[in-house]
């Protein structure tokens, strides 16, 4: 049986593993930590703004599993918060085991605490990846979903140092760019001031450390907005953020809290002393990153050049997805790109042309648009997400955004791709 190895078990890697498996490949996922989902373990926001459209498209294309899991694990549905409508907030404490069981039940082999550190090439093909334990893992095709976050040296050079986030580089070792090891230079995202990278956009507070009335409101409504004392309002920090969809005035003048099991604080970092000046947060403490008072992880320092079928340029049998495949933000974006990369790995093995999702779909358009924008000077400073910023504006302009499930169904039907990811190819 043809073998596909997915390097990195975040949302993109899990999605890729599922669709590669559905297409008939033998699939193994190499994950450096002891958890799947990576930063998805501290995320939780789904279906806000254009992500609703994208989630429905992914389901209709034939990869409903992960979207269904996040729906099932949602603590709140149809939540509005500044700049965002109809969000679902999945419970970060529930979702990882659900995904793990789903992948295992579908016969995906999960190799935890397995960090890929190098490759063995056979001309323009990757023959195998080397793990930190000196094992060679060979396969016919590889999908890199190692993301772009960290490691510690990058978080220090481009941020405020290691803030001890969920990726736990000190414990499990840092991410290594597989495409770079295979000889393809990484592309780097920039921020407004021309420096590189961007900082993750939210922290988690421990729920038990908040005032009971805040917790009560959070559990009822999913969201609480608290005003920041005037002297502490800082608009500058919006520029550092990854998540341009949350870089809005309201997010500087207020702290926005969301209930994802933890309390998601919608800012990159916030000095604890200042945070505790806000009414109801007098005893607040961080759950992720542990040093959320000082900084957060740095991202977008490791993208691979790729085509719209998500094959990495210059390497015959390497695909990529998630942040590795562009300046994407979010779980939905990772699942969208991951699903396509997994499906295309089977096509690649058969010598078939790779599937490029048409631009009539939001998931097809964002993949093509993010690539196009790499050629534009400002393009490296933007982030691409269905949920806000430049790309959501584009969705509105192009008429891609809708919450009408029937309309989305018709759209997928019309281009003849309904259930394409369900098709067994190998």
């Amino acid at each position, binding site marked *: 049986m043809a073998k596909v190895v997915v390097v990195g078990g975040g949302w993109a890697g899990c999605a890729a593993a599922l669709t590669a498996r559905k297409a008939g490949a033998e699939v193994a996922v190499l994950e450096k930590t002891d958890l799947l989902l990576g930063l998805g373990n501290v995320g939780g926001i789904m279906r806000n703004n254009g992500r609703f459209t994208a989630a429905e498209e992914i389901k209709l294309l034939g990869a409903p599993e992960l979207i269904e899991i996040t729906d099932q694990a949602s603590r709140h549905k149809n939540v509005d918060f500044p700049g965002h409508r109809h969000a679902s907030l999945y419970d970060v404490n529930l979702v990882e085991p659900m995904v793990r069981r789903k992948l295992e039940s579908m016969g995906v082999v999960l190799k935890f605490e397995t960090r890929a*550190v*190098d490759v063995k090439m056979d001309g323009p093909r990757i023959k195998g990846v080397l793990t930190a334990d000196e094992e060679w893992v060979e396969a016919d095709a590889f999908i890199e979903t190692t993301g772009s976050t960290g490691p*510690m*040296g990058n978080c220090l050079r481009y941020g405020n*140092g290691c803030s001890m986030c969920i990726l736990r580089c000190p414990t499990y070792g840092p991410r*290594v760019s597989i495409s770079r090891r295979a000889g393809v230079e*990484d592309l*780097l995202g920039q921020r407004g001031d021309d420096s590189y990278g961007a900082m993750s956009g939210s922290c988690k507070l421990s729920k038990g450390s908040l005032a009971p009335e805040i917790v009560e409101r959070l559990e009822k409504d999913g969201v609480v907005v608290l005003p920041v004392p005037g002297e502490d309002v800082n608009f500058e920090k919006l520029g550092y953020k990854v998540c341009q969809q949350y870089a809005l005035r309201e997010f500087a003048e207020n702290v926005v809290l969301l209930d994802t099991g933890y309390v998601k604080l919608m800012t990159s970092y916030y000095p604890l002393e200042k945070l505790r000046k806000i009414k109801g947060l007098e005893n607040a403490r961080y759950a992720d990153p542990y040093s959320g008072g000082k900084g957060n992880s740095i991202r977008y*320092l490791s993208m691979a050049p790729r085509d719209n079928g998500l094959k990495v340029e210059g390497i015959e049998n390497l695909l990529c997805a998630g942040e590795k495949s562009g300046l994407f933000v979010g779980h939905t974006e990772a699942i969208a790109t991951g699903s396509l990369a997994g499906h295309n790995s089977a096509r690649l093995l058969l010598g078939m042309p790779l599937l490029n999702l048409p631009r009539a779909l939001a998931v097809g358009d964002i993949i093509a648009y993010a690539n196009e924008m790499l050629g534009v000077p400002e393009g490296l400073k933007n982030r691409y997400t269905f949920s806000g910023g430049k790309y959501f504006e584009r969705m509105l302009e192009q008429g891609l955004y809708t919450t009408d499930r029937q309309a989305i169904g018709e759209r997928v039907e019309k281009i003849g791709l309904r259930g394409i990811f369900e098709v067994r190819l190998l």
Partner: protein
Amino acid sequence: MYQALDCIDAGTEYCPCYLAETGECIMCSQLQGRTFCDCTNWKGVCIYQEYVNNRKRIKEQRKSVVARIADKRYVSENVVLLKLTTGVTLARELKQPGAYVFIRCPEEPAFFDTPMSVMAADDQAGTVTAAVQIRGVKTKALQKAKEELLVRGPYWNGVLGLKYIKGLRNSRALLVTRGIGQAPALPVAKKLIAAGNKVEVVLDKGRGGVNFAEQHFLELGCEVVHRPVLQPTTLNVPEETLEYIRQKLLVEGTRLVYTGGSEKLHQGIGRLLASMGTAVFFACSNDARLCCGEGVCGSCHTRLPGGGRVKTCKSQLRPADIYGGR
């Protein structure tokens, strides 16, 4: 080309060192003049972060300290066992396979510093024992020492393939040593025995003319056999000895082979292991011409078969990459 090797000092109190300051760090791409992480050889500590947090200065490095000679015993005409009182801290730091120090007479200039493997370290008494074979200018000068020597350490890269030695449990290991190479093999045997391994030692008294470590191997519970491991003129491993080792691997299921002696010995055994294609771990003594021990002077450099030069005083190389085998 950027190359990541395993540095023995990474993450220790001596890291970051002189090499970080000059953009020559063995492990960290950020400290090799590049501006992004490419961290294939993680040792649990971000060296770049240590450097920045130390205000972009290196840590305080090893210094020479005066050690009293507690015992000096000639075991043959040209082999002397020196027991030095180093204090408990240094002794504790040297109580592991691959440990070595630089020693010299206090009256000699710094370039008389002589690298010497630690044969035994007693962290209760605060002593360290080294076996010195008198051969050249530096070792002859050591003979003059009556009461005291200068000791600089701890250094740890006297054995290559350390992780295989440290990782083997409840298994079988074979140590092949010759002459003065018996001394660093003793801590190797100790470590292996402590992890529940069965250890056999093939001893060749070599040029020193004496198996000064035999009694210690036996006391540890090793099985000791006597065989010539290098022919006197050709410096090849005798065919009968190779056959003996081959049988050990094939019949008894030995999982690790350590060679302690000269490069010729490592080459001979490495070739045997490579030709057998078995999954046996290979470790060996580091016989490079160590001079400063700090990756600075370059006297210990070696070329890797795949290209690139390596400072062997600090780099944990895989013996198999240099000599064959796994």
